[in-house]
């Protein structure tokens, strides 16, 4: 099967820090890939390279057959990819409804009525249709993150990226966001997720990747990783995050 995301030997420096050291990864259509690893291991950087929020120094990234090599291609790829950030990044000056319709209208040129209909369907899907006229600041973190997911889905992406979507949330709000992500995974969405929610990993991940110091250490199914990891580094990391 052809990979929908093809990452080949990518390097990235931040000043003197070598953040990505020759990372190669294939993600197939409908696959849910979860990237775990310690802080500063390059997980988020790798994710942000996929939709070119970070530019890699060398190597190549091809998304759905489109190489990330020109401004035109980058915009084309971004239209196929939705991203959800740790800090939500909802547009602070717009209502929830306007947050969901802005890019539909400006980028996809959808009519107002159509974009609002789609927005309302998605808000219903993430469980907060009653918040359409609220401003982001009036919502809880969990609600904001669900709006952010709905905003990304409104663009009909083929791929969804999640950059630590639950790390900024209060514990009791994590589940409501994970439930939305699980539903999305069960619908067959291609997802790349940076997260340490092991419950989500067990329930939804097709493949888990452990990164450390800018490299992929191990790539395996969740069962394989949790029961018999092949690398010492993986064992050490899991022993810490699983609180065993």
């Amino acid at each position: 099967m052809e990979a929908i995301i093809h990452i080949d030997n990518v390097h990235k420096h931040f000043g003197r820090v070598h953040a990505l050291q020759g990372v190669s990864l294939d993600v197939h259509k409908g696959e849910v890939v979860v990237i775990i690893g310690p802080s500063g291991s390059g997980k988020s950087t790798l994710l942000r390279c996929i939709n070119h929020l970070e530019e890699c120094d060398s190597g190549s990234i091809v998304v759905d057959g489109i190489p990330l090599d020109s401004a035109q291609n980058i915009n084309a790829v971004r239209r196929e990819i939705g991203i959800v950030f740790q800090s939500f990044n909802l547009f602070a000056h717009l209502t929830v409804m306007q947050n969901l319709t802005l890019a539909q209208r400006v980028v996809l040129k959808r009519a107002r009525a159509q974009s609002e209909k789609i927005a309302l369907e998605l808000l219903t899907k993430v469980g907060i249709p009653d918040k359409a006229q609220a401003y982001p600041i009036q919502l809880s973190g969990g609600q904001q993150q669900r709006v952010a997911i709905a905003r990304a889905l409104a663009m009909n992406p083929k791929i969804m990226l999640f950059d630590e979507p639950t790390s900024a949330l209060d514990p009791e709000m994590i589940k409501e966001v994970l439930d939305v992500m699980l539903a999305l995974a069960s619908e067959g969405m291609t997802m790349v997720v940076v997260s340490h929610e092991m419950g989500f990993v067990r329930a939804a991940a097709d493949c888990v990747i452990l990164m450390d110091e800018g490299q992929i250490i191990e790539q395996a199914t969740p069962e394989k990783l949790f029961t018999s990891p092949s690398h010492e580094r993986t064992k050490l990391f899991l022993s810490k995050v699983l609180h065993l």
Partner: protein
Amino acid sequence: MDTQPKPRPSDRELARIPGAEPSARLDPWWWLVVLVIALTVILATVKSDPFWRILLFVRDGVAVTVFITATAFIFILIVGMLGGLGRLSRNPIIHGVATLYVEIIRGIPLLVQLIWWYFAFPVVIQQIGRWLNISVMANYQANAIVTAIVGLVFCYGAYMSEVYRAGIQSIPKGQTEAARSLGMTYFQSMRHVVLPQAIRVILPPVGNEFIALLKDSSLVSVVAVADLTRRGREFMATHFDPIEVWAMVALVYLIMTLFSARMIAWVEKRTRFER
């Protein structure tokens, strides 16, 4: 893990929520505007010679001052936005030109700039016209009001560029990232996401610039523009009553600036509420 503290609403953000702020009452500082107007009216009625005569004499100057300030300010808002975006551009040429403009203009006194535009610039145009044999340019004469507006726009545009730059930079980077990753172009994300938020932030300094411009517009009186200040000088030259003339001119400026300040405060309060 790279956890970030949960973003908490600041007072300013809370104030943005419709209904979270007490209903818009009339700003108490309006009484100061009323007081200064009352003082002017009393002077003009109780001692109409010379005060009323002074007011009548300078009233066309008031119109000129208002016209120059308002026209210049519209252009300053545009030049400032372009300058601010230029200062933030990653294109080294655009960034260089914008930075050069801001640094040079900020380093030269406004009065010198106005004099340069009025007395030196036309000569430059005439010289070029003579070399190139273009009679329109060779016979170029400066229009005082247009030249004054150009001078004010050039100078204040540089200061305004810095105001815009600071405002745009105050908007979290995540806002642009979210907009761009939804497929918006640079200009779309600026227009729909960054600038609408930045403009709310820069409103107080923009208001300051407006009031400063209103006052600095008095400098155009040295380049043959018959504004309020120049009309005051003309009246003094024929009547020799400096105390009365300059008291009246000062009062008229004060009415305009105090009124502007209240209007700006009102707009600021209004834009906190969402559409």
